[in-house]
């Protein structure tokens, strides 16, 4: 047994509409000849009709499964169609075969199904197993051996090349043409090769690759009854495309003397060849167009991502000192997104002449969804900071807005606070974010944090406000976990120690904030080396000079 195809149906006439198209497609792929496929088509419809009329409610509760495969033994082939249903036990083979209809008055047309099943199959089998009826239909044929091309042609007499021609004449013309069996993966024609023969596919499947590479998307399928090699055989030029056997295939080789002298003189063949070539040309044009369209779409997508990145950047404060016009406060942020659009955010703005609002956050995930969520947060938090004085109220308001209808269960961490610039008093609250650091001449320590849930996943979360006084010359350094969790190629994390080490290398109280941020970034890049950043890295520093 080789590959098999499977179809799942529900017991309704509408669902059964997909049965025949499936059978034709799968049967063609498995190399079942048209005549045998037609028989199977009849059998499948009769088997399904039986399930519909005798299966009862059981048949409607579980899917009906149809399986198709081909058994090979030498040149003998057997297509096996199995249909199983969970309906009431019913062996259609035990039903009485209807006598031929006698008169219209007493005809009820029952029992015809079995007659058609018998007439269209070589063997029928029924068994009841695992609570299912399993009906097996077998249809047999002979696959022509290498010796007899005429015999193989029976299956492809309606192939495009020979449509409308006299089958006997074709068979005579091809009687001594060699038939080749190609194992899967065999290259029949290669670009650059000289070729004067036409190959007609009898069974199996070939694919042509215009670019000479066997990437799965670029292959154009050649099915039984179709031919390859006509182009080079006609114009005498080298083969232009790679032709490979996708599975074990049989081809009949038509050398020039047979193709030109015997076949092309058969009425109808030349015209068929022309329409075949036209069709081939159309198909390859479509493939080229499709590739082109996909490339354009990809370019377009890249452009849109670039625009999204610029938009996102424009939502956050720009690099460099944030309030250069003020001499009572220094503030500066820096950000390095991992992917082109990231999910980190920070902000700093004055809500009144003396009160500075600062925040930093990290949205779950990356890419466009994280960027959209982040953009929403930036907008919401600006409104919230303008309407309340309490940092915990800012977070509660933000959480209420984000948790409503949060189907994608996205969330963010968020630290925020209000700094009274003249006194240095910072009131702050936290939703699942890392402790900012307080960097002073005495050393670096973490800001103690109140407990607080991540923002977004649960409605009604409560947050607390704490207060601290920040001395002049002490830097409040907020960061996202992309900084401390950045890894090097040994898998080690930059860690809090790495961050503190970078900060300690500078005179904490006097160095410009820009150089502090640069030092951290430089240390981080030196540490991670060639390893690209896995997460966005964002820093926000605030200091009263």
């Amino acid at each position, binding site marked *: 047994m080789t590959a098999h195809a499977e179809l799942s149906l529900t017991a309704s*006439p*509408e669902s*059964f*509409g*997909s*049965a*025949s*198209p499936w059978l*034709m*497609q799968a049967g063609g792929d498995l190399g079942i000849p048209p005549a045998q496929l*037609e028989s199977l*088509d*009849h059998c499948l*419809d*009769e088997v*399904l*009709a039986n399930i*519909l009329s005798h299966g009862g409610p059981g048949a409607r509760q579980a899917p009906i499964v149809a399986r198709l495969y081909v058994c090979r033994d030498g040149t003998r082939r057997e297509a096996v169609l199995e249909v199983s249903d969970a309906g009431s036990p019913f062996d259609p083979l035990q039903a009485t075969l209807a006598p*031929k*209809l*006698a*008169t*219209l*008055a007493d*005809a*009820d*047309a029952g029992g*015809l*199904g079995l*007659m*058609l099943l018998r*007439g269209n199959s070589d063997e029928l089998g029924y068994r009841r197993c695992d609570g299912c009826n399993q009906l097996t239909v077998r249809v047999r044929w002979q696959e022509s051996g290498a010796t007899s091309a005429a015999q193989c042609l029976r299956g492809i007499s309606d192939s495009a090349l020979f449509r409308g021609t006299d089958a006997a004449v074709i068979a005579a013309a091809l009687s001594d043409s060699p038939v080749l069996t190609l194992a899967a993966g065999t290259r029949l024609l290669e670009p650059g090769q000289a070729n004067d023969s036409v190959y007609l596919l009898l069974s199996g499947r070939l694919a042509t690759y215009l670019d000479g590479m066997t990437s799965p998307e670029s292959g154009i399928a050649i099915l039984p009854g179709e031919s390859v090699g006509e182009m080079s055989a006609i114009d005498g030029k080298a083969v232009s495309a790679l032709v490979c056997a996708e599975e074990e295939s049989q081809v009949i080789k038509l050398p020039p003397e047979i193709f030109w002298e015997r076949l092309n003189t058969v009425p109808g063949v030349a015209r068929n060849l022309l329409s075949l070539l036209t069709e081939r040309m159309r198909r390859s044009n479509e493939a080229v167009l499709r590739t082109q369209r996909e490339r354009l779409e990809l370019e377009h997508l890249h452009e849109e991502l670039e625009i999204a990145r610029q938009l996102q950047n424009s939502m956050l404060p720009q690099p460099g000192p944030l309030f250069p016009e003020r001499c009572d406060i220094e503030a500066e942020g820096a950000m390095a997104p991992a992917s082109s659009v990231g999910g980190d955010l920070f902000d700093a703005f004055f809500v009144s002449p003396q009160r500075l609002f600062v925040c930093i956050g990290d949205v779950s995930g990356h890419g466009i969804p994280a960027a959209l969520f982040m953009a929403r947060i930036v907008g919401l938090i600006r409104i919230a900071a303008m309407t309340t004085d309490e940092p915990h109220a800012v977070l509660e308001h933000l959480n209420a807005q984000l948790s409503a209808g949060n189907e994608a269960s996205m969330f963010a961490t968020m630290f925020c606070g209000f700094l009274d610039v003249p006194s240095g008093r910072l009131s702050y609250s936290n939703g699942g974010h890392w402790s900012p650091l307080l960097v002073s001449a005495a050393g670096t320590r973490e800001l103690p944090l109140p407990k607080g849930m991540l923002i977004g996943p649960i409605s009604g979360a409560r947050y607390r406000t704490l207060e601290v006084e920040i001395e002049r010359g002490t830097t409040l350094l907020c960061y996202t976990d992309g900084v401390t969790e950045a890894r090097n190629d040994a898998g080690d994390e930059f860690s809090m120690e790495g961050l503190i080490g970078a900060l300690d290398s500078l005179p904490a109280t006097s160095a410009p904030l820009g150089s502090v941020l640069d030092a951290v970034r430089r240390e981080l890049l030196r540490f991670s080396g060639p390893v690209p950043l896995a997460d966005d890295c964002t820093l926000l520093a605030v200091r009263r000079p």
Partner: protein
Amino acid sequence: MTVSTSIAFRDTGEGLRHVSLSGRLDIAGTEAIAAELATLCTTAQRGVVLDLTAVSFISSIGIRALVTSAKSREQRGGKLALVVAGDSNIARILETTGVDLIIPMFANAAEADAAVAG
């Protein structure tokens, strides 16, 4: 690649109704046209000529629909004849199952018209 099944009809001046079916008369196809076929066959004034030349496939379900239509036509005192392409699979199946013995079957439409009108 689903082949849709369709039904169309035309009434002639002589009270004949020509009904033509096309596509597959399998389970799904027959289901799609069965109600309309039954209505067309019972409401015709006199005879019905059912043209199957464009039918590509027929199963027992489809045959049953033909027999039911012919029966209901006969019960209302009219005739029904089939037009089937001479050497088609459809003709072969209708002959194998004996449908041709109980419903007159013709290879050309004029003969079918004459049989139903007579």
